[in-house]
């Protein structure tokens, strides 16, 4: 078990962002979490990377428990995760290479190892020709691919993708989803938050529906078609 939520609630003042969440994620799994805006998807993600801690209950991620995590453990935990955001969050003053290299640099890899891994990943993601470009010189799809490359560069065990296609047109979105599926096929667990779970082909993922902080029972792909 890679991730476990045991009766987790997160309140902001008195407002329940998440309530009584029970959830487990296994290694190599592809989990799709959908729901309307404000349903609590982002809060769920924050609890996974422990940018926030639960008001009650226990979150356990790759052996790190929310009730015992120390400040110094956070960086170790986050190096096991890759995170992709809807708005890409690329550093505008750095090149594609530097953006992708950042997780390795902050983990203390040698410049040689960083170059080798980044060049190889950029080649895999067909971004090598863009390695010296700055984010503003890239299309939306390219920027999201760079963001995914940054998330994957340190070989995370879990990839969290928070609405990664929210700002992309359908064709580019399809390409990004294919990329996430490919990453999942290499053994990385992928958790995808999306408004539109139908982007994911039937039978390739487990589906959950989040609404006003409550997790609905597992929903099948067919179930989504009926929503």
């Amino acid at each position: 078990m890679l991730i476990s939520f045991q009766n987790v609630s997160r309140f902001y003042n008195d407002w329940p962002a998440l309530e009584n969440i029970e959830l487990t994620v296994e290694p190599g799994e592809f989990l799709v979490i959908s729901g309307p805006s404000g349903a609590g998807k982002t809060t769920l993600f924050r609890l996974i990377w422990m940018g926030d801690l639960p008001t009650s209950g226990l979150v356990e991620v790759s052996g790190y428990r929310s009730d015992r995590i120390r400040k110094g453990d956070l960086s170790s935990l986050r190096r096991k995760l890759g995170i992709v955001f809807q708005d890409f969050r690329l550093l505008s003053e750095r090149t594609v290479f530097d953006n992708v290299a950042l997780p390795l640099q902050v983990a203390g890899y040698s410049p040689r190892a960083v170059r080798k891994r980044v060049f190889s990943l950029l080649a895999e993601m067909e971004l090598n020709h863009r390695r010296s470009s700055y984010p503003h010189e890239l299309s939306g799809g390219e920027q999201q691919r760079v963001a995914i490359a940054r998330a994957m560069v340190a070989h995370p065990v879990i990839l969290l993708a928070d609405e990664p296609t929210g700002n992309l047109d359908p064709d580019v979105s399809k390409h990004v989803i294919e990329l996430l599926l490919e990453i999942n096929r290499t053994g990385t667990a992928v958790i995808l938050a999306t408004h539109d779970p139908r982007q994911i082909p039937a039978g390739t993922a487990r589906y959950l529906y989040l609404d006003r902080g409550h997790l609905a029972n597992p929903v099948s792909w067919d179930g989504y078609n009926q929503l």
Partner: protein
Amino acid sequence: MIHFLKASLHEGLLNIREKLGSFLVTLLMVSLSFMVFDIFLVVSWNVGTVLSDEQESVGIELFLREDISEVEAVNLADLISVMEGVRSVYYVSSLEAEAVFRADLPEQADLLILLGPQFHLPSSIQISLHPDYRTSGKVSGLARTVSGMDGVKDVVYGQEYLPGLTSAVDMMGKLVVLAGLVLAISLSLIVANTVRLAVAKRALTVEIMSIVGAPGWFVRMPFLGEGLVTGIIGSAGSLLLTGVISSILSSSIPHDFLPGKWILLVLLLGASAGAAGSWIGMRSGIPKPRS
């Protein structure tokens, strides 16, 4: 670890390069603030030198009764020489006093002839004090003690100017410390504000670093380094500016520039203010990841 440090240094340089303009403005502000302090130090140093020269000459002179023999006077001097605070004593006989008088005031040497052969200048004991004892309170205390000794006619120790001199030296010392503290605090606030602006400008970088697993010190170190560099270069710049002003003015107002120790102190103060400013700025400026 070395790669960590290199990467952190690289971040610090990026930090400065990305906002070179505001970095230079901050340097100028720090330099000008420090320059006010440096000028104050130069003035303090020179006034302090004059005061300590004055203080150096502080001592006690005991005039002895005429009926005291030389042997008795030497015994008295020996007795005084072992008293607390006394560095050395020197017995000046009546004949030596006259010789000094003639040598120091040759135009008034006739006065001794006019006063006749019966007149003799009094013999005396000159007491030199340890530096710690050259204050008004201690000198007057010692003077009171020795004035009650047998054979002493009169005691002179600069009663008129010593209290003022002591309090001026005290005040100068306190003023330098106080000005140093006030300046260190205000400079820390200037640097803190600059670092806070730098952090705000780099909020996304800090956030992404934290999300991709950068240790806290890795995120903080470039800002701390920037504060240190700002403090050191700023204070060095102020010393340079003050040196230029000092050399321009030296022909019309003779004075000394700061000694090496004080220059080092200014640089250390700059580094400390810079580091403290960064620390304050980081504590209030580093954002928490938003989502």
